C-alpha cells in the first residue's frame, strides 16, 4: 500500500483549477483507507508549484524535476513518471482530464501494462469509477482489475475543488530526479500560439443562444440568430457547427472553445455531449430545445421543450418579441 498520488498540471506558472478538482476526487478515494493523498508536480523549476501544492492539506509533494521537462513532451513526461511509479508503486494515480493528460497518460499506463480510466465523473465505494458512454446518453461503471497502479483522470467540473480550502500546514516536499536523455524526446514542440484574434467574449455574456447539429444546414441559422436578436443574446455554437465553418470558431462553447456562465443559456438542437457540457454547465438557467427527449442536454437543463426546433424556435422568437413590446 503506497497510497494515492495526484499529478497537478502547470498552467502558466500556477496550478490550474482542474488539478484541484482532481485532488478533490483523490480525497474521495482516500477517505476509505483514511489517508491523505500525495501530489506530484513536474517540470524544470517546480519550486513555486510545489509550495502552492504543499499548502493544500496533502501528505507530501513530489517535485519531479529535470531540465528536459521544461516544456511538456509526451516522451519526457511519460519517461519521468514511469520511473517514479516503478520506484514508488502507488495504488492510485489521479490526473485532471486535460488535453495534456489525454496526450501522454494512455502511453504511460500502457508502458506499465495498465490502462487509464479516463474522464471520470463520479467515484463510489469499491472503488467504482463512473464515466459517460455513447455521447453522454449512458454511464459506465468501471473497476480496476489485475495488479499494478490504477490510473484515472477526472472530468472538468465533476468534482468540487473548494472542498478542502480550509486545510492548513505545509506538507513535506521531496524532489525526485528522473534520468532522461535528450535523444529520448522525439517530438519538438514550438511555443503555443493563439488562433484568430478573439473578438467575442462569450465568457461575460449574460444571455446566450447556442445552436448545435439539430439546425441541419447553414441556411437555417438565421432562425436561431433571430431568436438571439429578439432576446438581445450572443449567439454561440457546439463544435460541429464551427467545424463546418457555419459560425466562427470564437463562438464555440465547450472543452475546446470558451467556457461560459451566463444567466440564461438556451441550447437549440444541441444533444449535450460532455465536451459541450463542460463549457456551459455553469449557466444559472439552462433551457434546452431538442426533438430527442433522451438527449443528455435535458440532464442539465432547468427547462426543456421536447419538439422540432423548426417549429419551436420561430414561435419562441415571436413570443419573446411580443413580451418585449
Amino acid at each position, binding site marked *: 500500500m503506497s497510497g494515492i498520488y495526484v499529478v497537478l498540471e502547470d498552467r502558466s506558472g500556477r496550478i490550474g483549477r482542474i488539478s484541484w478538482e482532481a485532488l478533490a476526487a483523490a480525497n474521495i478515494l482516500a477517505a476509505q483507507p483514511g489517508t491523505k493523498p500525495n501530489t506530484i508536480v513536474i517540470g524544470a523549476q517546480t519550486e513555486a508549484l510545489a509550495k502552492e501544492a504543499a499548502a493544500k492539506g496533502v501528505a507530501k509533494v513530489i517535485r519531479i524535476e529535470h531540465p528536459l521537462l521544461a516544456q511538456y513532451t509526451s516522451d519526457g513526461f511519460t519517461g519521468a513518471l514511469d520511473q517514479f511509479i516503478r520506484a514508488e508503486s502507488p495504488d492510485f494515480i489521479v490526473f485532471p482530464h486535460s*488535453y495534456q493528460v489525454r496526450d501522454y497518460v494512455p502511453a504511460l499506463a*500502457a508502458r506499465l501494462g495498465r490502462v487509464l480510466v479516463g474522464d471520470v465523473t463520479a467515484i463510489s465505494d469499491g472503488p467504482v469509477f463512473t464515466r459517460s458512454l455513447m*455521447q453522454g446518453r449512458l454511464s459506465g461503471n468501471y473497476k*480496476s482489475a489485475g495488479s499494478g497502479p490504477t490510473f484515472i483522470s477526472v472530468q472538468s467540473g465533476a468534482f468540487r475543488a473548494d472542498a478542502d480550502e480550509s486545510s492548513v500546514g505545509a506538507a513535506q516536499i521531496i524532489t525526485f530526479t528522473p534520468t532522461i536523455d535528450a535523444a529520448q524526446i522525439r517530438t519538438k514542440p*514550438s511555443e503555443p500560439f493563439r488562433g484568430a484574434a478573439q473578438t467575442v467574449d462569450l465568457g461575460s455574456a449574460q444571455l446566450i443562444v447556442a445552436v448545435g447539429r439539430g439546425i441541419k444546414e447553414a441556411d437555417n441559422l438565421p432562425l436561431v440568430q433571430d431568436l438571439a436578436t429578439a432576446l438581445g443574446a450572443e449567439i454561440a455554437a457546439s463544435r460541429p457547427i464551427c467545424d463546418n465553418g457555419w459560425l466562427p470558431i470564437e463562438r464555440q462553447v465547450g472543452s475546446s472553445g470558451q467556457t461560459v456562465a451566463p444567466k440564461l443559456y438556451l441550447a437549440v438542437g444541441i444533444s449535450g455531449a460532455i465536451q459541450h457540457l463542460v463549457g456551459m454547465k455553469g449557466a444559472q438557467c439552462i433551457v434546452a430545445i431538442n426533438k430527442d427527449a433522451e438527449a443528455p442536454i435535458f440532464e442539465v437543463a432547468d427547462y426543456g421543450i421536447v419538439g422540432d426546433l423548426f417549429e419551436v424556435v420561430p414561435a419562441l422568437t415571436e413570443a419573446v418579441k411580443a413580451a418585449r413590446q
Partner: protein
Amino acid sequence: MKIIVAIKQVPERDAQVRIDGSGKWIQEADIQFAMNESDAYALEEALQLKEKHGGEVVVLSAGPERAGTTIREALAKGADRAIQVEVDDLNQRDALGAAQLLAAAVKQESPDLILTGLQSDDLGYGQTGVIMAELLGLPHASLILHVEKTDTGLTVKRELEEGWFQNIDLPLPAVLMIQSGGNKLRYATLMGIKKAKTKELRKVAAADLGHANAPAAVLEKITLPQKQKSTQIIPGSAKEAAATLVEKLKFEVRVI
C-alpha cells in the same frame, strides 16, 4: 507515404441506445451503425496526404462482421485497401486490449504514418492512437488539426485548450490522433462506391494476433445517467410551449 488509418464503426449519432440484458452493453439489433466521426477526419487527412505526396492509404478496423460496411465506405472514399480485425467482444476489451489488436495488425505493414480519430462516439476512451504509438515504439501527437510533411518528418498543428494551438515537429514513422474540423469531409462518389467492391479487404482473426491480455479495467455495468437537475419539461404545441417558456423567462428567470 504508406498511411494506415484506424477507423471504428459506432452507433449512429441519433440512434436510440438501450441497455441490453447483460447490463454491460447496448441492444444492437435495431440500431444503425456509421463511421466514427473523428475517424472520418483522420481518413480525410490521410487521403489528402496521399493526393499531395503519393503512396497508399490502408484502412484498419477492428470489429464484428458488420464493420465491413463502414470499411467499404472508407474504400469508396478513396482508401486503397483494408484490413479488418475480426473481433466480437471489442466493447468488453479495455483501451489497451483494443489498441493491442490494432498494433499487432499494423506491425506486419510497417507504415510511415498511422492516423486515428481522437475519440470514439461509443466508448469514448480517446486513447487508441496514443497506446498504439507506445506499443509500436513510435512518437505520437494528439488533437491534430493540420499535417505537413517536411524534409525530416512532419510538422503538425496541435489544438490546446482555450483557443491555443502549438506546432510540433516529429520524425516518421509516427502516430497522429486527428481532431475534427481541420478539413472538410468528402463524400464517396458513385464511381468510388463501384471501385470499392473490387478493393482488397483482408480479414484477420483476433485470435491470430496473439492472446488477449487480462483487462486492466473492466466495464462492469451500464446505467442511465443520473440527472443533475430536475428539468421542467414544458408541454404543449410549439406555440403553447413557447408562450409558457417566455412567461418563465420573464417571471422566474427574470431575463426578459
